[in-house]
């Protein structure tokens, strides 16, 4: 089995996120990190490999992003991926979700994976949709929010987080699966793994290498266009009920809920 894991470089969780009004894109200056959701996807791939139910020949980390995204790839391979592919091209800069999904699908096609894994969302864009777009272009079935995954020869048995409880779904390979963060606790890389990461093969490719149709990618060619943004309206101050006499407090809460027909 060959597993490709999609990974992304995102602003570090500690950095306050903001839209740059001059470009309409997220301000991605400042400290960056590997999208924390992707670490769960890499861990899921590692657990399939180490689980031994099927032989895994290779785990390949794949990203699209600027030069700095190499660091995210180093982090991904330090967590266990065998090598990485970096699609970097001015032509793809500013792509929206649909264009990014297309470009990633073209990049993945070169690898012919049996399984594509990714995190449920990116910590910056938070679109939750890349998996589905990639699957559509690859003509593969896709599942989102997967929190358990068992390999069965040419299929996967997955548990998918649903609004109430979870669905158990069997899905034929090849497939695209986005995993929820409840699926596992990602490992932390050892120093040896960190030092070894820079020695693992990294394949830097351009849009042309991936046979990407330049008229379908980039900011100009994206269907989604940023027009304006405004801060969400400030919330009205809530009502604080001091708990002096708990019986009384409960009554007050019930009356409040009742008034609003919430119970």
């Amino acid at each position, binding site marked *: 089995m060959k597993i490709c894991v999609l990974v992304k470089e995102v602003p*570090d969780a*500690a950095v306050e996120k903001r839209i740059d009004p001059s470009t309409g894109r997220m301000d991605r200056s400042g*400290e960056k*990190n590997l999208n924390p959701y992707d670490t769960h996807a890499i861990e899921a791939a590692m657990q399939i490999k180490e689980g031994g139910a099927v032989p895994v020949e290779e785990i390949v980390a794949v990203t699209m992003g600027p030069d700095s995204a190499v*660091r995210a790839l*180093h*982090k991904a391979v*330090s967590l266990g991926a065998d090598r990485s592919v970096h699609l970097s091209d001015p032509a793809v800069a500013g792509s929206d979700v649909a264009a990014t999904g297309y470009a990633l699908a073209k990049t993945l096609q070169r690898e012919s994976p049996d399984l594509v894994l990714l995190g449920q969302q990116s910590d910056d864009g938070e679109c939750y949709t890349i998996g589905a777009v990639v699957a559509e272009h690859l003509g593969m079935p896709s599942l989102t929010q997967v929190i358990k995954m068992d390999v069965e020869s040419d299929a996967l048995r997955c548990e998918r987080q649903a609004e109430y409880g979870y669905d158990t779904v069997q899905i034929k390979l090849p497939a695209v699966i986005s995993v929820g963060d409840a699926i596992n*606790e990602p490992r*932390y*890389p*050892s*120093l*040896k793994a*960190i*030092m070894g990461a*820079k020695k693992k093969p990294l394949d830097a490719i351009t849009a042309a290498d991936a046979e990407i149709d330049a008229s379908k990618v980039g900011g100009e060619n994206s269907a989604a266009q940023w027009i304006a943004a405004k801060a969400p309206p400030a919330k009205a101050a809530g009502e604080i009920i001091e708990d002096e006499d708990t019986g009384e407090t409960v009554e007050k809460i019930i009356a409040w809920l009742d008034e609003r027909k919430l119970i």
Partner: protein
Amino acid sequence: MSTLTPPFSDEHEHLRQSIRGFIERELTPHAQQWEEDRWFPDEVFGKLAAQGLLGLKYPESYGGQGGDYLHEAVLCEELARTGSGGTAAGIGAHVNIATPPIWKFGTEDQKQRYLVPAIRGEKIGALGITEPGAGSDVAALSTRAERVDGGWVVNGEKTYITNGVRAHFIVTAVKTTQEGGHHGTSFLIVERGEDDGITTSKLEKLGWHASDTATISFQDTFVAEENLLGELDGAFKLIMANFQWERLAMSLGAVGAMQIAWERTAQFARDREAFGRPLSGHQAIRHKLADMATSVYTCRCATYDALRRFVAGEDPLREVTMAKLLTQRASFELMDQCLQIHGGAGYMREYWVERAARDARLGPIGGGSDEIMREILGRVLGL
């Protein structure tokens, strides 16, 4: 993560992120319990070993990670995040003072018997130098080893030894001549076993509660010939050599602890209101926090400079001594100020800050006291 500060590179920051995540997931949630238990479990060493954290600077051939002192420095700093000085001290004693002499001065056989299992977290080490009658004055130690057939017989007492109860082996400084001192002190690796003539007792302390600081008595303890570490009668210079890294490690630990304490206290000062505004809205507190941040910064700069020189292979006795002197006192003073800003809450067990203040008090005493640092500086500066 902070922006890069020399001598640390991108690789070190990646390691820092990994270690911090590991510590915050595996150690910090238990720290309070371990403090109350006056003990952290031995399994902590196994967990650290599985993550490669007991062998960062040791070669891969011994099961280490093949890194160097700079990688170890990251661990020293991040250990402050356990939130338990005692836990950090127990781990630190193992990686920073007990195992380095075996790595540097041990025979291949000693490395196989002690360093390899120590890196695997199977054998825990301690360094036994201090005695009831000899602390700062290392040359005055009186624990003696008499030559017998096939080895030595040790009698005497060590005290204030970190990991003293739990240690499987104690790198012990002993007198091997009548006079002892500079030319009559040797290192023996004393291994614990049945009927070893060793008794240990744990000491109650102001801080470092999770660590088993102990008195260790040797009564006719036999130590085999092959456990002499380094040259016979030649341990004094080994002890002195090892102090440099120990003091750097302590400085790094202080910098790590100061950074976290400052961040938490600044947050507290923003959140807590008095006289109609946040504490940080009062100039007295704001200025205090500004001075404290300056102290963290100066300590970091001095420590990193000494570290950079040490790693570059200089013999930075002056810089390491200054860093140790500066940071240990500054850390205690900073913790006291953090406690003060917390008001009554600062005095309560419920909050982290009273523990941080107690834990920091050891710094100006252990690993060579402030006075001894000044004595060294007096010499180095030609006074």
